[in-house]
């Protein structure tokens, strides 16, 4: 089969648009804490996980010990292990391209996991733009400050949510039993808001359990 000629997956554009103001705000917040400009940039290059990066800034600001801060980042990012297992069991790639797991984020995972399993270059087409924009946004935020008008920052902020809605509608059309996973994931994440970084992980576990229990039942009922 010929390789696709487009170098950008269309789903990468809304993800990148949504990342830009968040990365910008992250760079700004780091500089506001009087951290050196290289600190947020290195975090964006090597950690590439928004929630844990903001948490790191908070921990630095409160003077938390390095070991405690590192452990907090690992706990917040624990969900990525679940995403990685879920994604790569479907993808079934050779060993070497599995290094692309380093570009797996919540958003690229969701976009790449709904629909047919992508091949490595298809995932690359989806993942390179959000990663580049995440770093570029951090650099701009930490070096240039509030140049991007707030109206644009806020309007771009909704692009990821619109992408999620579009992906959800598409997923439900393909597999109606996915509604149980989505509802359980949303409900538990909402209830678990007070526990902060754990809410997403708990929502994912609850949604997966709902798929195991209710999704299986729905599929059996749907059979003639």
């Amino acid at each position, binding site marked *: 089969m010929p390789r696709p000629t487009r170098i950008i997956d269309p789903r990468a554009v809304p993800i990148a648009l949504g990342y830009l103001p968040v990365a910008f705000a992250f760079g700004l917040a780091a500089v506001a804490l009087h951290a050196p400009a290289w600190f947020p940039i290195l975090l964006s290059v090597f950690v590439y996980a928004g929630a844990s990066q903001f948490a790191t800034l908070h921990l630095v600001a409160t003077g938390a010990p390095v070991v405690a801060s590192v452990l907090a980042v690992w706990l917040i990012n624990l969900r990525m292990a679940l995403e990685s297992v879920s994604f790569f069991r479907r993808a079934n790639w050779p060993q070497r391209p599995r290094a692309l797991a380093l570009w797996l984020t919540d958003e690229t995972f969701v976009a790449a996991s709904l629909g047919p399993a992508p091949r490595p270059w298809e995932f690359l087409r989806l993942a390179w733009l959000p990663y580049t924009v995440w770093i570029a946004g951090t650099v701009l935020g930490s070096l240039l400050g509030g140049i991007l008008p707030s109206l644009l920052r806020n309007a771009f902020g909704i692009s990821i949510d619109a992408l999620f809605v579009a992906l959800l509608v598409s997923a439900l059309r393909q597999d109606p039993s996915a509604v149980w996973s989505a509802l359980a994931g949303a409900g538990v994440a909402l209830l678990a808001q007070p526990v902060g970084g754990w809410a997403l992980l708990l929502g994912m576990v609850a949604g997966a359990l709902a798929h195991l229990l209710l*999704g299986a039942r729905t599929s059996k009922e749907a059979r003639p």
Partner: protein
Amino acid sequence: MSGARLLLLVAGASAGTALLRYLPALFATRPAHPKLERLLQGVPAAALGALLVQSVPTALPAGHLLTVAAALSVAAVLSLRPGGVLLPVAAAVAIAAAGLFLHLP
């Protein structure tokens, strides 16, 4: 915090996060129990639902609930048609920008 400590923090955070992403990817090839397979198949839709409720309230500044609802509703309706995701997303961003510009609730 000193520069050396910040560097140590970056190194520890990035090494742990890389392992959390990469190690499961390496070992995900082994055959698993069918129930575990089914469990893992539910993760993407669950993540989608959880991400939506986490991010929508912060998508726009407080006081723009109707604008958010209108933008996401239009995105949902446009997603029903076959095609890519760019049109629903572009429409939602345009509605959000217009709502903010006009100070709509």
